[in-house]
């Protein structure tokens, strides 16, 4: 296998090259003005290592794959085009009002609770750039009011006169009947044909999101329209760069659905969060390859803690209405939760409860923790870690950021010690205990609302602060096994390298499998089968268009089901893709009941209230070769080897040993071969992170840079 996968982040462009079984990890600074430059630099390091030319490597790979945060950044920077919007008349304030709750989307809990401070985010479409068009369709797509073409022409001209550069159209019930949206598109193209310089791109909501919910579909189309040109230009630049270096195959773009597609089959919206989603995909692949069972993927960086769930058995956890930046949208995105907890989280004294509080405020990277010596005066988690002896002040982040322990000590003493009536070390321990507990609570909630118990999971820890805090977090969760991932410095890029080409198509509908009023069981099999066939065909055509072999295309069928009039829709993966008998229907009902019971508790099912399908979804995909994770599992106890002599020791403090210093051995990760076992306490430092082995835990190194943290008393 020969492949390049790239994760273009806000700071670094991570690159993972697979070349005839050799895996190469490289990094370069992201070059925002021209992403190709950072990419080239990262690839250069790889081809130098392989001792071949860039042309040779690009001509030889089967694909180049990109995951990028470009879209997320563009949203935050608010540098998109001026959008004009057409909605069903009577719904002009739908977007500005953002379902009322829009003020709090993407904020922390206090931001949501604090109504007098509430402020909706700066809109992507200004309210006066929204016009209502006279038309209406009913919930089954039936005509209620015909589209007034003259009105549409007038409204389009009004928007263009006001400076619209893109027109987004979202009409009520367009997902069940897109005729009116298409009619608007036709009129717009008549008025502003594409061959003219003044042509206006048009985005129809039903093409961006296939589910009901006019507001979330509208925001999806808006975000898509807002990012379209930015993404198009940046990605085209990348593609052009590839072409000029002898790459002749299509460039593949990672989607937040957990799949990927060619650039010409990608909505801008689908690229948002594709970097972190790639990390979860890598976690999924790792779990399968190394037979880890269910895993909770955690990425702790400087300001955030990302959590993803990968459950054994292939059940995918999607957010159908994820929040992107501050916008609630409709797109099937791999479930990902971000907690505001990281090394930069600020510790404070909670006057109400006479205890330590950590977060949600963060010092970020500028000014950063007090120990960065960049003017930060607030004590942070990193300051506490430094005071506790976990970090090497001279070699933090490979020595790129010198730390000043005096600043940490001062900040902790000033902010916490007097109020808590404790010494600095005790305060720092309280900070560590609190942040570990906060993150554990976040993981707990994530798993438990889905019916899972953390004890049944293996924790994957990556990101700069992941291996430093993972033992503390896992202890709070009763998790016995932590895997600090192999290739952790480019883990998301590794995930991008493993993805399959995939397209998801879904149909929003009202299909009653059991009608509690008439007490009838669904028997219109043809309707069900026709919809599945149509969605499968659309997916197949997408893949054929991209050059896939018809024989390689596979489909997965998922149904979003609910009891009665509930909000929750439980996704059921159905192995049989057509209905032929009552038994087939009963099998679906049984599977729904089982999945629902697992999540909410056995007995909580309510079939008596009726059962219906709200969405039929078909994921069409082509599988590709994947990266091999070999010898990742910890070697048996008997085969483990003792560590080499430590490179030194440091005085550290641990929660169980209180304020008493423990002389803790320190190793360089590069000195520790696979199969080594170190019993905690201990510290293993690398250029990108610090592996903290807390008392009660042991460190077992594996191949490809993977590291296990195992509870000392567990059987492993």
């Amino acid at each position, binding site marked *: 296998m020969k492949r390049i996968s790239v994760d273009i982040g806000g700071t670094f462009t991570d690159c993972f090259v697979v070349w005839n079984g050799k895996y190469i990890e490289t990094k370069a600074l992201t070059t925002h003005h021209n992403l190709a430059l950072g990419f080239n630099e990262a690839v250069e390091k790889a081809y130098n290592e392989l001792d071949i030319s860039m042309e040779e490597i690009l001509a030889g790979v089967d694909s180049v794959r990109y995951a990028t945060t470009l879209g997320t950044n563009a949203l935050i920077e608010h540098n998109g085009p001026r959008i004009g919007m057409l909605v069903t008349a009577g719904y002009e304030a739908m977007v500005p*009002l953002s379902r009322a709750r829009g*003020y709090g989307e993407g904020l922390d809990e206090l931001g949501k609770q604090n109504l*007098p401070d509430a402020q909706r985010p700066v809109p992507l479409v200004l309210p006066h750039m929204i016009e209502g068009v006279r038309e*209406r369709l009913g919930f089954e797509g039936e005509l209620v009011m015909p589209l007034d073409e003259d009105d549409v022409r007038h409204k389009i001209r009004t928007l263009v006169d006001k400076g619209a550069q893109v027109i987004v159209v979202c009409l009520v019930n367009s997902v069940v009947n897109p005729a009116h949206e298409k009619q608007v598109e036709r009129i717009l193209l008549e008025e502003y044909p594409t061959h003219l310089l003044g042509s206006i791109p048009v985005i129809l909501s039903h093409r961006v999101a296939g589910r009901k919910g006019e507001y979330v579909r509208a925001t999806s189309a808006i975000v898509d329209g807002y990012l379209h040109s930015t993404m198009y230009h940046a990605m085209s630049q990348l593609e052009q760069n590839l072409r000029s270096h002898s790459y002749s195959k299509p460039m593949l773009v990672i989607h937040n659905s957990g799949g990927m597609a060619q650039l010409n089959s990608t909505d801008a919206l689908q690229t948002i969060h594709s970097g972190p989603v790639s990390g979860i995909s890598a976690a999924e692949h790792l779990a399968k390859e190394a037979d880890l069972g269910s895993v909770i993927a955690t990425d702790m960086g400087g300001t955030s803690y990302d959590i993803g769930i990968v459950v054994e058995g292939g059940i995918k956890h999607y957010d159908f209405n994820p929040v992107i930046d501050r916008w609630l949208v409709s797109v099937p995105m791999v479930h990902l939760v971000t907690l505001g907890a990281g090394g930069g989280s600020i510790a404070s004294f909670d006057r*109400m409860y006479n205890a330590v509080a950590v977060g949600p405020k963060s010092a970020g990277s500028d000014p950063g923790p007090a120990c960065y010596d960049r003017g930060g005066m607030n004590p942070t988690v990193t300051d506490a870690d430094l005071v506790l002896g976990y970090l090497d002040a001279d070699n933090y982040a490979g020595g790129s950021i010198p730390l000043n322990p005096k600043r940490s000590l001062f900040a902790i003493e000033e902010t916490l010690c007097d109020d808590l009536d404790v010494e600095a070390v005790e305060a720092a321990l309280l900070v560590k205990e609190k942040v570990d507990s906060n993150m554990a609570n976040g993981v707990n909630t994530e798993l*438990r609302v889905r019916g899972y118990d953390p004890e049944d999971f293996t924790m994957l820890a990556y990101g700069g602060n992941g291996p430093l805090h993972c033992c503390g977090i896992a202890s709070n969760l009763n998790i016995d096994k932590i895997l600090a991932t192999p290739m952790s410095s480019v883990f998301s890029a590794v995930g991008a390298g493993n993805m399959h080409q995939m397209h998801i198509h879904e149909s929003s509908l009202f299909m009653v499998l059991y009608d509690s009023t008439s007490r009838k069981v669904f028997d219109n099999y043809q309707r069900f089968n026709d919809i599945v066939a149509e969605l499968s065909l659309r997916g197949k055509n997408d893949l054929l268009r991209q050059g896939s072999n018809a024989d390689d295309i596979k489909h997965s069928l998922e149904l979003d089901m609910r009891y009665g009039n*509930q*909000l929750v829709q439980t996704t059921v993966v159905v192995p049989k893709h057509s209905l032929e008998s009552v038994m087939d229907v009963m099998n679906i009902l049984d599977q729904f009941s089982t999945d629902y019971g697992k999540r909410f508790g056995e007995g909580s099912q309510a079939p008596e209230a009726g059962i219906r399908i709200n969405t039929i979804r078909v994921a069409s995909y082509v599988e590709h070769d994947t990266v091999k994770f070999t010898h990742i599992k910890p070697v048996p106890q008997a085969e483990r080897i003792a560590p080499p002599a430590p490179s030194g020791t440091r005085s550290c403090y641990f929660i169980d040993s209180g304020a008493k210093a423990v002389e803790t051995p320190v190793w360089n990760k590069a000195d520790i071969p696979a199969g080594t076992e170190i019993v905690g306490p201990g510290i293993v430092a690398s250029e990108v992170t610090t592996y903290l082995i807390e008392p009660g835990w042991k460190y077992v190194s594996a191949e490809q840079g993977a590291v296990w943290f195992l509870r000392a008393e567990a059987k492993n």
Partner: protein
Amino acid sequence: MNTKVNVDTEVQDQELIQKFLKDTTLFLGPDPEIMRDHSIMPRTEKEEECMDKYTDLNQISSIRDRLQSACEEGFEMVEQMGAAPGAKWGDIITGIYSASGDLTIGSAGGVLIFSALVHHPIKFIIKNWIEEKTVGVQEGDGFIHNDSRYGNVHNTDQSMILPVFHEGKLICWVASTVHEGENGAIEPGGMPSMAETSFDEGLKMSPFKVVEGYEIKRDILTFLQNSVREPKLQYEDMKVKLFACMRLEKRIKEVFATDGPDALTACLRYTNESVVTEVRRRISEWPDMTVRTQTIMDSTLRENALLKINLAVTKKGDRLIFDFSGTSPELTNRAINTQLPGMKGMVGQAFMNHIWPDLPRGQAGLSPVEFVTQEGTLVDCSYSAPNSQSLMSIFHSFTVAQHATAKFLYSCPDKYTRVLAPWHNMINTFIWGGVNQHGETLGNLCADLNGMGGGARMDRDGEHALSPIFATMADIGEQEMNEEEVPFLQLVSKKMTTNTQAAGKYRGGMGYTMIASTKDSDQWGFMTTTQGSKAPTIQGLFGGYAGGSYPMCRVSGIDVYDILLKNPEQFKHSIPEIMNEQPFENAIYHTQHMGLGFDISKRGELYMISQGSGGGYGDPLERDPTYIIMDIEEGLITADYAKKLYKVEFNEETLALDLEATEKLRADYRDQRKKQGVPYAEFVKKHVKDTPPADIPFYGSWNGDVDHVYAGSVDDKRDANNPGPIYVTHPKDVRIAELEAELDAVRQQAGIPSTDTRK
């Protein structure tokens, strides 16, 4: 003489009498001892012992975080699994209560007042059912409750309450509450304004056991299903609440396993006491003073009337006293009264979301606040008075509390959020019921009640249709989803209602228009239950204006769906255009106050309302003219409105501002104001009257005399402490009497004798 023996004998006699009375209690009705007390219970010996045992406040903090996380888990379960529209759009909550019944930790999301009132039914269970041999409280039991007379906002909210035991000992309670809507009342949807007695209000569930061994008792479930219009909803949501409570119980038991039940007991007590201490400290920071304010309710939802909610807030040291003396007496046969806990709970909501939003969500936040009310008033009604529309009086109570406290906050250097003008306070939404397009019987409401306009702030405009006053992150929903389940369309769903802005230096957040029409059912109807069609329900702040007043409009005698297909150009997407232009032939155009009783609708008839605006902040003459132009561009106000209220000059075509002319206009208007000014004594002499106007039914105190209240007539002045019953005549009887009088007059004119044999 041996005094001691006599005293002992008297005590003994009293005890005997008390025992006899207890043994012969006919009916365990609402208990004033429980219902009138909103403070946290005294520390028990057990709590004292646990607090002595667990002194590490960081451990306590860690347990608290876990319990909070458990409440969020329970909340999400209810939100996801719940079938009621209220559950889907956030009108729910889950909470953990101490062994004595105090709400200690509520979920961050949802409606705090729900949980904050459940301590009353829990205390009722503790007092009456634990020792009662026919009931008892065991592990695996669950109690249902909805009756506001035992502690609730109104009977449409149903709670499930579970005790949590450890090795046979009761450690705490958990509960989950949902605004269910339908409850079998005289009108569908659970909030009947037609209710004239408590027996018109549907299910009246005092706390009783409905779950044993973690299973819902089928016989009782059947009885409850049989008592409401939506048996499916009743079943689904009882189950949902039970499983959410069971999940909470499970999490609490995990704390027992790791830290022990005593640690949990200590945590709950520490939490409540810490909050009380902090609230007292914050109160101490406020200036010592008294602020007086009032609002006027303009209808009973059945007829027009003016009813006063009067409030004086006094702060002295660490005491804060809310004195509602002078408030209108209760109406014996109207549903707008509230039980005392409902009013207090709503004031508590003001503190939690609008004054100190950083406070944890529990009962302790309100515990230090003192209340003065008179029994038999709108805010402290008797147990026999109907209160299914208690929202009217509790929302007004919220507003006066918000208005008064804003003045304390303004004067206090340490603020925990922005000072703001009152939020819009009415649930301008459609309540609906009937048989839907799928043949199901439904009764509930549109989530638009969650879109109340926010008040203007000290430094910025209010946000439009942001949130109800009683919840955060509540949702106004998606029409495409609603239309799958109900047989009507909102032909206008979210369009800002022009010129309903509360003006100010910073303007209030505005509301939007809703036009609904039944489409796919011939058994469907609507009602609206809102005040403020004649007098605004909120005030502005520091010179800012009040929100506007909005009538309810209807068009009958048409099928708009025919019109939309055949003559679509006739339909207009705004209430003023439809009502002023009257574009449909042979249609009947109605306007009325916003208390529309349940009205069976025919296909294609139009029902039209608007959400309301939050109050303005500061003098409109100080508003930045560029903001005014932005409001015009966004269609929020018209040029006429802007010029009239803000005194601003601009080109109406290009919207180019003339700042110089604007300055002059404003300076001239200020001069005019000065000229209109008169000395205070002169103003009083001219404007203040000794009695309310004779031609308006007025209820409440007049001119600051809070010892007396008027009861609907200038001739009916009563003792405020004992106002007695007030019966209001049925509007139909009023109308019949009017028609009979007219008929009588005609007969007399024609020389025909009266046919009324009663005369």
